[in-house]
C-alpha cells in the first residue's frame, strides 16, 4: 500500500514522528519520481529549498483545515445556546440550518470594510492579522496523533504559551487604533485579564511538566497510556490543576463568565467594536480557533491526548478496526477531537448558563484563589514525586481515593456553607480602583 493511502486509512499506525517527516519520507517514493519524469530542472534546486517546500506543504494543510473548525463551532454555539434557551436556532439555510455559518461568512465578505477616520489606519489593519496568526501558530505544536503533528518541538508547551501571550499585543493594538473609548476600555480589560490569568495557566502547566519531566507535547502524551495514567488522575494535585487550568483558559479566551472585555451591555463589543466585514470575521474565527486550541491543550496535558482509556498495546495497532476501536476508547485522532469538543461544549454550556463576573470578582478569583491554589499544587506535586518516584498501582489507588474523598468533602461540606448567601459588594475604595481597569 502506498504510504499516502496508509496514512489516510490509519494515521496513527505508521512510525512517523510528525507530518514533516512524513512528507520527507513519502517524497522519496513518488514525489522524487514525479520530479525526475516531468520536471528534471527542479532537481537542481538547492536542498534547503526542497525542505522549505515541504514545510510549506505542512503549514498549508493546517492553515486549510483549522479555519474550518470555527465554521462548525459557530453553528454549534448557536445551536447549543438555542437548545439551552428552549429555542431551535438557525433552521432556514440548509437542512437544520447547517449552512448558516457559510451564508454568514459570505455576507461578511461582501460587507463594507470600514476604517475609523480618526483612528490609526496602519495599526487598525495590522492587528487582526497578529491575533489571527498567533491563534493559528499555536496549532503547530498540538499533537493530534502519534504522527499528526506539524512540528515536534522540544519546548512544545512553552512555545504555545509564548505564542499565545502575543495575542494580547494584537488586542491592545486593535483597541488603541480604533480611537473609540469602548474599544480602548475593552482592550485594557482584556490585557489585564489575559496577563493575570496567564499565571495560573503557567503554574498549572508547571505541575504537568514537573511530573513528566519534559516540555515536549508528544512526550507528555506518551506518558499517559491508559486512563489510570492520564495526568488528571495521576495525583490529586493535578486533578485540581486541571480545573484551575481549564477555568483560567476560559478567562484567557475572554468567554462568559469572564467576557468583561466584550461585555455587550457595557462596551458594545469591546476591542473589536469598530471592526466590520472580513476584519471582524478574522477576530471571530480567531476566537473560536482559540477556544478549540485551549481545549485541545487541556485534553493533551491532562486527559491523555491521543492515548485512550485503554492502554495502547491492548488494541490492534493497524487497520480500520484498530482505528475505530481507538476512537471508541477516546484515543487516536478521533479521540483527541472528541475530548476537545467535549471541553468546547462545556465552555458553551457555561457561557449560556452563568452570568458575567464583576471586575473585582474576576481579579480576586485569579489572585486570591487560583494562584495560591496553584502554588499549593506545585508543592504537592513535588512532594508526591518524592514519595512515589515511579508510578505504581498503590500511588494511583491512593490518588483516586483522595480525589473521591476530596469531591465528597467539597460538595458535601463546603458546598453547603458556600451557598449561604451572596458575596457582599466591594467597598467604595476597592470599586474605585477596579473601575480604572
Amino acid at each position, binding site marked *: 500500500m502506498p504510504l499516502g493511502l496508509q496514512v489516510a486509512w490509519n494515521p496513527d499506525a505508521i512510525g512517523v514522528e510528525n507530518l514533516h517527516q512524513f512528507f520527507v519520507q513519502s517524497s522519496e517514493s513518488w514525489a522524487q519520481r514525479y520530479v525526475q519524469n516531468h520536471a528534471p530542472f527542479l532537481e537542481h534546486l538547492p536542498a534547503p529549498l526542497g525542505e522549505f517546500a515541504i514545510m510549506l506543504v505542512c503549514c498549508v494543510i493546517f492553515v486549510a483545515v483549522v479555519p474550518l473548525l470555527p465554521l462548525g463551532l459557530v453553528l454549534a454555539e448557536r445551536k447549543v445556546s438555542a437548545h439551552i434557551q428552549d429555542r431551535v436556532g438557525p433552521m432556514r439555510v440548509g437542512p437544520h440550518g447547517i449552512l448558516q455559518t457559510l451564508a454568514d461568512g459570505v455576507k461578511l465578505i461582501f460587507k463594507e470594510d470600514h476604517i475609523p477616520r480618526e483612528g490609526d489606519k496602519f495599526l487598525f489593519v495590522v492587528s487582526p492579522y497578529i491575533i489571527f496568526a498567533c491563534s493559528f501558530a499555536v496549532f503547530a505544536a498540538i499533537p493530534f496523533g502519534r504522527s499528526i503533528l506539524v512540528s515536534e518541538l*522540544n519546548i512544545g508547551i512553552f512555545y504555545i504559551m*509564548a505564542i499565545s*501571550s*502575543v495575542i494580547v499585543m494584537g488586542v491592545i493594538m486593535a483597541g488603541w487604533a480604533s480611537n473609540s473609548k469602548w474599544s480602548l476600555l475593552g482592550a485594557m480589560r482584556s490585557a489585564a485579564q489575559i496577563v493575570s490569568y496567564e499565571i495560573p495557566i503557567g503554574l498549572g502547566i508547571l505541575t504537568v511538566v514537573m511530573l513528566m519531566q519534559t516540555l515536549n507535547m508528544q512526550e507528555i502524551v506518551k506518558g499517559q497510556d491508559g486512563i489510570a495514567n492520564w495526568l488528571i488522575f495521576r495525583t490529586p494535585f493535578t486533578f485540581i490543576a486541571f480545573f484551575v487550568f481549564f477555568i483560567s483558559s476560559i478567562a484567557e479566551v475572554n468567554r462568559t463568565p469572564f467576557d468583561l472585555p466584550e461585555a455587550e451591555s457595557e462596551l458594545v463589543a469591546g476591542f473589536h467594536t469598530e471592526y466590520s466585514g472580513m476584519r471582524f470575521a478574522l477576530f471571530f474565527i480567531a476566537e473560536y480557533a482559540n477556544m478549540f486550541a485551549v481545549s485541545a491543550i487541556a485534553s493533551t496535558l491532562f486527559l491523555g491526548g491521543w492515548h485512550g482509556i485503554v492502554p495502547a498495546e491492548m488494541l490492534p495497532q493497524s487497520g480500520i478496526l484498530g482505528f475505530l476501536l481507538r476512537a471508541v476508547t477516546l484515543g487516536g485522532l478521533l479521540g483527541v477531537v472528541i475530548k476537545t469538543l467535549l471541553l468546547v461544549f462545556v465552555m458553551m454550556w457555561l457561557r449560556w448558563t452563568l452570568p458575567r463576573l464583576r471586575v473585582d470578582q474576576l481579579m480576586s478569583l485569579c489572585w486570591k484563589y487560583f494562584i495560591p491554589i496553584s502554588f499549593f499544587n506545585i508543592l504537592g506535586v513535588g512532594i508526591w514525586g518524592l514519595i512515589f518516584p515511579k508510578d505504581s498501582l498503590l500511588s494511583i489507588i491512593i490518588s483516586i481515593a483522595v480525589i473521591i474523598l476530596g469531591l465528597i468533602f467539597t460538595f458535601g461540606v463546603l458546598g453547603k456553607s458556600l451557598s449561604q448567601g451572596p458575596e457582599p459588594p466591594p467597598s467604595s475604595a476597592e470599586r474605585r480602583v477596579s473601575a480604572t481597569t
Partner: protein
Amino acid sequence: MEFNPQQLVFYLFALLTIGSAVIVVTIKNIVYAAFSLMVTLFSVAGLYVFLQADFLAATQVIVYVGGILVLILFGVMMTSGRLDLKLKLERGQLFWGGVVSLTIFGLLLSVITNTPQWENVDAGASQEPTTRKIGEMIMKEEFLLPFEIASILLLVALIGAALISRKEVRNE
C-alpha cells in the same frame, strides 16, 4: 559565496532587528515606538532560534512581548491622557546616548572576542532538549548562587510593588 537560504533568512532577521530598533529610537509617536519594539524583540527571538536556543527564544517572547511590553503600553495608555504624545530628540541626548551605547557595544565586543571557547551546539547530532542543560547548569553547577540572588531580587521587587500600590489606595 554560495547561495544559502538559511543565511538569507538570518540577514532578514538581522535587518528587521536593527531597522525596527532604529524606528523605536527615532519615531516621535510613543505608541508606535512601543509596537516597533515588539518587532525588535520578536526578531531577536528569531535570531535565538537560529542559534538553536529554542528555550531562550520562547522565554524572550513570553517575558518581553507578553509581559514587559504589555506593561509599557499599559503605562503609556493609563498615565498620560494624551496618547499622541510627541517625543523630542535633542542633540545633547544624541551625543551622550551615543557615548553610552558605544561603550556598551565595546564591552560586549570584548566579551565576545575574549571568550576562549564557544560551546558548539549541533542540533542534528543531539536530540537532547536544551532545557535539560540549562536546568542542570542553574540548579547543580556554577550558576546556583547568581540564580538564587536574582530570585531574591525579584521577590523584593514584588513586595515593593505590592507595598507601593497598596499605599495609593490608602491615600485616596
